[in-house]
């Protein structure tokens, strides 16, 4: 009979094997076969669990707040009409912009295709800020694809398995996004802190950054992460910190996306 300590050591050896397997697959942006198997088994169950919960919530909401829903519906309809007219106007500008770029012989910006995805799972612990999406390599998703929603930038895909993928949110500790202020184009990198707020660092000390400034993606590469297309809303500057001793300027950003309330996102896949 083997002692419990020997068995625990055997477990740790097994763990080492799994870690090596995982890190080798990770180098190619893919999940290891055991991780893919776990995701494939659990993602339909997670999806069903979330839908059942959402159904009960909907029923409860309808029973309790019927009048509110009717008012909200009317408000949303008027907003939709407004958004539609705004979209048509922007499409006109986009067309004009493309024509002008062609005249100036500027290269056409690479565009991707938006793939709708559902969030089927959230991170299991506090140490990371990640979500599981119900789209994977079979749907054309690759590692480093950009994830966004109507509110703005959500994050990037970091691991892909055949039917699911894991996306790191911009609040994740390992996230870095090339960004700039919409008002003054002051450039820097928005880094996740693992908490609600993100840190906007590496800004020129003399740059004009103020509280309330909107921050959006700059289209510049930050580290080895995804190349975020220019103009995606990241958030709003909450507070600015100037350290004269080190000539450092940092800003704290409140992300535009309410991460706890979104259930569906878009993945910008390559064409």
């Amino acid at each position: 009979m083997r002692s419990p300590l020997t068995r625990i050591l055997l477990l740790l050896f097994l763990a080492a094997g799994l870690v090596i397997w995982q890190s080798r697959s990770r180098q190619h942006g893919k999940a290891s076969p055991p991780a893919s198997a776990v995701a494939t088994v659990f993602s339909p169950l997670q999806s069903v669990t979330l839908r059942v919960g959402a159904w009960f919530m909907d029923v409860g909401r309808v029973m309790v707040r019927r009048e509110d829903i009717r008012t909200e519906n009317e408000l949303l309809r008027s907003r939709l009409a407004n958004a539609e007219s705004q979209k048509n106007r922007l499409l006109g500008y986009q067309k004009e912009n493309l024509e002008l770029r062609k005249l100036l012989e500027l290269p056409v910006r690479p565009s991707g295709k938006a793939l709708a995805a559902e969030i089927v799972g959230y991170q299991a612990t506090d140490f990371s800020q990640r979500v599981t999406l119900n789209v994977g390599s079979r749907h054309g998703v690759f590692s480093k694809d950009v994830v966004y929603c109507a509110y703005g930038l959500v994050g990037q895909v970091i691991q892909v398995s055949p039917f699911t993928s894991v996306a790191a949110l911009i609040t994740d500790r390992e996230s870095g996004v090339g960004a700039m202020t919409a008002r003054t184009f002051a450039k820097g990198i928005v880094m996740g802190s693992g908490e609600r707020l993100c840190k906007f660092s590496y800004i020129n000390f003399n740059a004009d950054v103020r509280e309330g400034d909107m921050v959006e993606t700059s289209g510049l590469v930050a580290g080895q992460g995804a190349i975020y297309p220019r103009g995606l809303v990241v958030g709003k500057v909450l507070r600015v910190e100037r350290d004269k001793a080190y000539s450092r300027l940092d800003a704290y950003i409140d992300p535009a996306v309410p991460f706890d309330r979104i259930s569906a996102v878009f993945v910008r896949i390559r064409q």
Partner: protein
Amino acid sequence: MAQLAFWRVCLALGVAYLIQTTYLAQLLVYETRCDLLLVVVVCVALLGGQERGAWCGFLAGVLSGYAGAWHLGSFIVSRVAAGAAVGYLPRKVSTENAFAPIICAVLGTLVADLVFLVMSPTNFSLTWWLRHTIVSCLLHATVAYPLYFLLKKFLCPTAKFHCN
């Protein structure tokens, strides 16, 4: 220690994982989440002993690591350490103690978080870690008590008091 049915432990972990990654992850208390998988590991270790606790910790670590696609090794070792540490306790401390689930949940959380802090390649600020650990200990202690009795009924249905 009693032999807890392996499939029952796996099923309990699977259900905990589902609840954790769908609903519990969205419930924040002072920006901290309750880690249901870790509490299940603690309860299984209390009921089944060191070896079962370590096995359960291994499976919980694999699930947590795969869910975040992040630091798989740190998750596995921290959960195995928590399971083994709590499973080792009943030999010294009586499991007849009414406060055993609460004390073990706090101990398991401390061990898991400490091992994770030491092993993880990511640098966590000490203030964040302290706040996270304190709130986690309180959350896990609250959840541990009802979960322990629920799991005891499910994992060892024939036992009158304790599995061991």
